[in-house]
């Protein structure tokens, strides 16, 4: 009974808030362009489902492509750092700069470099910049997290650098790598959406563009519908990565 209540609690709260929102809109006669009632948002979700789904796929595919690019680059950089402390020191400030610089600030520059006709390239590049850091820092931390007694055994058996990296440090880093990818996936979606906003043209067909387009036409219900789609997309991606992380950890530790 108590467990059922705990499970239902979040849905109940959402339902209550939606009901209050709906009632308030109707009772106060709020204009639809200012704040549409949830029923109007739902209607827009149904009516615009084809274009919203197409845009969601567009944003998702950009984010996933960026995640793949960031994953390859970040792990290659982390491997370099793992092999040589000098490389790690050299990369550290660059990695921090890439992390602390707001993606929105570098977006216009990247858009110029990508070419005005190729906003997709800019979106992937910007999302990859945002997704790079969690994977890189997770990998670098993980590569250093090997059991010190196992490190001593590798010393004792005269293991070389490459053996140590591939047989000890890289496998030790798997939990942090999985965690890094989970965080990076969420950030890649944010990065893609921010880049779409800055691109702000019909060249980018993602969810941010739907929000901008609907906003320009004061179709507030459609804006909400696009926002809901974006939220669902993020939640689904997070849930997927969490499952992958759990399965990966199970494979890693055999438990």
């Amino acid at each position: 009974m108590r467990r059922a209540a705990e499970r239902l609690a979040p849905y109940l709260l959402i339902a209550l808030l939606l009901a209050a929102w709906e009632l308030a809109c109707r009772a106060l006669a709020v204009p639809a362009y200012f704040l549409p009632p949830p029923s109007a948002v739902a209607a827009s979700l149904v009516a615009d489902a084809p274009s919203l789904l197409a845009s969601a796929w567009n944003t998702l595919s950009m984010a996933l492509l960026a995640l793949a690019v960031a994953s390859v680059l970040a792990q290659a950089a982390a491997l370099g750092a793992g092999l040589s402390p000098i490389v790690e020191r050299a990369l550290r400030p660059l990695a921090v700069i890439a992390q602390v610089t707001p993606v929105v600030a570098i977006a216009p520059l990247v858009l110029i470099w990508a070419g005005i006709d190729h906003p997709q390239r800019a979106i992937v590049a910007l999302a990859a910049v945002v997704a790079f850091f969690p994977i890189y820092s997770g990998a670098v931390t993980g590569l250093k997290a090997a059991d010190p007694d196992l490190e001593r055994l590798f010393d004792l058996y005269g293991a070389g650098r490459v053996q140590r990296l591939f047989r000890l440090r890289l496998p030790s880093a798997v939990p942090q790598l999985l965690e890094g990818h989970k965080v990076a996936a969420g950030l890649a979606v944010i990065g893609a959406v921010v880049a779409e906003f800055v691109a702000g043209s019909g060249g980018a067909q993602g969810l941010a563009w739907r929000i901008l387009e609907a906003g320009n036409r004061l179709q507030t219900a459609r804006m909400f519908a696009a926002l809901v789609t974006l939220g669902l997309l993020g939640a689904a991606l997070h849930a997927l990565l969490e499952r992958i992380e759990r399965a990966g950890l199970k494979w890693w530790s055999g438990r």
Partner: protein
Amino acid sequence: MTLAALRDVAVDYPRRGRALGPFSLEIAEGEITALVGASGCGKSTALRLLAGLETPTTGEAARDLRRGETSVVFQAPTLAPWLSAQANVALPLALAGLDAATTGARAAEALARVGLDGAQTARPAQLSGGMAMRVSLARALVTRPRLLLLDEPFAALDEIIRRDLADDVLRLWAASRPAIVFVTHSVEEAVYMASRVVVMTRGPGRLAADIPVEGPLPRPPGFRATAGFRSVVETVSAALARGLSA
């Protein structure tokens, strides 16, 4: 023949100061030496010096051993969680560049010797503490070492398993007779397993006493109840007490 020797070694750490010494110890082939002393007296440091994993600040650590002839078992099993029991045991051979068929066969054989022939594919997380320690022991033995160093290997296990493992170590020792040096907090364990008990003073550890233990190895059943065993335990305990107040 002397396999490894510490001659007037001292080890100083930058902030903690002196951890060990001056201390001397000779390890002869086939001998089982127990190192006992208070916590922080430098027993593990002495073991790392014998392993060649550390160099002394002063004095000399001499080793007449080639790479792969020394094995270490730590207090924790120290297994790679992502590898099966057999792959963990095979690791030292794989690092030495032996081919997969040889490493696999020798690892399976080493696992069988510690009584784990059914556990080749098990992961460390699926093993009990005692079983994981046996895997660790198998990994140490797979290289056929001439010097086996055990750093409080059974400290985390309960008494029954400790006693079983002590007998296992002696049985395994009898098969190939490597020199064994082990660190322990238990005087009874030291006297039961060793042919010689080296007692250290409180840190920085120096030699307090070097006490021989008579009797056959591996130990016959009921050895712990013999007057000889009890008397050496008393002697070692007394030396330990003097070492603490020294």
